[in-house]
């Protein structure tokens, strides 16, 4: 976990999604450091986190991750926070705010998907067999990763801004934990939690996102009372990397008006 910016600023907590770590926010979080107390962290099993803290039982549901978020915010001992969650962490933030609304001032949900699997009358985008396929793809790559992760990291000489410490941990995950995280991410159904949110929310949706289709973003917006929906021109699932300026502007705009 790291915290930057003025201690007196309204705290902003950035939570990374499935697949990477807090490095995902490196082009977004600094934009708020002059006005806010900015906190980024790695979920257990990702990046620089302590894999020994992983408890299979606890993290078998997203609630386990949400409990961690509550614990982090409580430990900060700060006033209610602006929580910015990407992808699965958007739903983790939803669960945390339902458990402890007193800790949250705003939710910013970037590319959320409350249920990835298709269901009757709902299109999440994926089938059960396709999630199995993802697990297989991940497994196939861990075999390669074990030997090649180091050269991959060293092979970015033209990007000196990536500190060595950061690159050496970036996107590195414990394979067994990553597999569990994929399961819980893609097999959870948190649609019923949306109406229980009492904190104002901004839903940020990309215009073409294979993991969170437009209709899913609309679904989230419609089930979060008093929420605002912003559709970015950006495409893909990671506007925090592909269009950080547009994402920053949308968040600024929302917070200014709130």
């Amino acid at each position, binding site marked *: 976990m790291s915290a930057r910016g003025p201690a007196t600023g309204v705290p902003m907590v950035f939570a990374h999604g499935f697949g990477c770590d807090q490095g995902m926010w490196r082009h977004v979080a600094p934009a708020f450091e002059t006005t806010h107390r900015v906190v980024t962290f790695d979920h257990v099993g990702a990046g620089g986190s302590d894999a020994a803290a992983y408890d299979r039982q606890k993290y078998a549901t997203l609630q386990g991750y949400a409990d961690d978020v509550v614990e982090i915010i409580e430990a900060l001992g700060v006033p209610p926070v602006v929580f910015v969650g990407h992808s699965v962490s958007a739903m983790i933030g939803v669960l945390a705010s339902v458990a402890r609304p007193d800790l949250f001032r705003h939710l910013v949900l970037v590319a959320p998907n409350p249920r990835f699997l298709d269901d009757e009358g709902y299109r999440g985008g994926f089938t059960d067999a396709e999630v199995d396929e993802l697990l297989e793809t991940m497994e196939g790559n861990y*075999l390669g990763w074990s030997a090649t992760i180091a050269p991959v990291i060293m092979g970015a000489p033209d990007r000196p801004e990536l500190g060595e410490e950061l690159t050496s941990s970036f996107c590195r995950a414990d394979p067994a934990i990553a597999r569990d995280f994929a399961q819980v991410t893609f097999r959870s159904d948190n649609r019923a939690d949306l109406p229980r949110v009492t904190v104002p929310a901004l839903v940020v949706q990309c215009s073409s996102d294979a993991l969170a289709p437009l209709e899913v973003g609309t679904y989230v917006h419609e089930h979060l009372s008093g929420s605002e929906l912003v559709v970015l021109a950006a495409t893909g699932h990671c506007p925090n990397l592909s269009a950080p300026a547009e994402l920053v502007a949308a968040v600024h705009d929302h917070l200014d008006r709130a």
Partner: protein
Amino acid sequence: MSTPDRWDAAPCGLLVLDPDGTVAAANDQLTTWTGLAGDAVGRTRFGDLLSVGGRIYWETHLAPRLQLEGRLDEVTVELRGPQGRVPVLLTAVTDPGGPVRIALHGAAERMRFERELRSARQAAQQWADRVAVLQTVTAGLSRVSTADGVAQVLLAAATGPLGATSAAVWTATADGLRLHSVRGDHPTLPTPDVVGTGEGAVSAADGTVQVPLPGAEDLRGVLTLAHLAAPTPELDLPVLTAVAQQAGIALDRARLHEQSAGVARVLQRSMLTAPVQPDHLELATRYLPAAEDAVVGGDWYDAFLCQDGTTWLVVGDVAGHDIGAAAVMGQIRNLLRGIAYTQQQSPARVLTAVDQAMAGLGVPSLATVVALRVEQTPDDRAAGVRRVRWSNAGHPAPVHIPRHGTPASLTTPPELLLGAFPDVERTDHELDLHPGDTMLLYTDGLTERRHSDLDTGTRWLLDTLGRHSAERLEDLCDHLLRTVADHLDDDVALLALRAHTEDAPRPAEAGPVRLPEDHPAT
């Protein structure tokens, strides 16, 4: 060859993506693999060319990494195409805000090979896990000698590496299977079906697993497992069967061990008879076995009246912890009784005579012992005192607790163990015993503790006796044993004597006088 020819003739798939991830150009190999029509270029995102799993992986892992690091090497993904899926190795480079250049190498052979490697690795890991479980169980079973011990090792393995949330051990008795012990949160593990407990571990329809524990000749018990922890893979029945075979043999061994220990106990207890209760002397005895039930010590206590009317107190400890030690204890006890009864000599002389008898009769052991005689001359009697005379063959010193005063350990210069040599010089020691005084004879199990030395134990004993000396004799003994019972490493034998005044009737609290019926003193 022109540049477009080089691009299209390359033996690998080549792609250029716009910064937003849209395919801007693709070479012939790529369009062959994916069936990407020329007019779809410019409208298709790279993820759309991949299998769904690959697409999620691209969006969540690969694209972010590429954005941040500028490069990806040798990543495995699958293309979707008219001929089915094409496994490829992906290498990609990009600059901030610039296009993404991707090269894809066909990797079908390599993927087959890696899949074989993966399954070989999984199989190897499974075997390694199996061997580790077996090793743990075998090591655990080799350290235990009782059915309790076997059950605890089994339950620990079942609810640990074997992955059950609850497990129970049933042991075979003459009346069928009896629940021995349970671990875990399952309230009612079903009674095993004895008919079905023949050949190896069996999964029942209700999700529980029954594992017979076969002995050399018959079924020794059954292990049942239930409620397997959710993410744990299925139970490994061959490993369970192997564990069960080990456990069955361990139960056989435990039964033999317990039978032999039981015989030794009976033999030992037959020697530990109720003490005499002569006149105004009150005696109390205790015997507390060590925690490990199968171990029988060679400790003993004895109290008897001699022909001349003197009262003898003996506490001893034979080296060894088996049925042999119990048998030798019986021999030494009876030699000492017989010699003391007929010779009417001092304790030192009686012990020397026992040394000689042990040598001459070939009693093959060593023992520590304190022999103590309570005497009274007519003058003593007139003065209202008694005298104790004792000799100590390498045994913990007796304790004297004056009625009004501080308990003292009656330490004397050490003398050889009983049975060491036939001609040892032994010494008598004596002390006046006043009405209300107490003597305590004990074996070292009372004061010896793991992780602490004998001095610490003796200090504890004297301190405890000092604080409780006013209690009734039986209560005092109970108090001592209660304090040590939880952490006993060795058997404890206790013999306590309290002298009551002869000017008054024997107090009620001392209980009735008890003497052998045909004793000359009765």
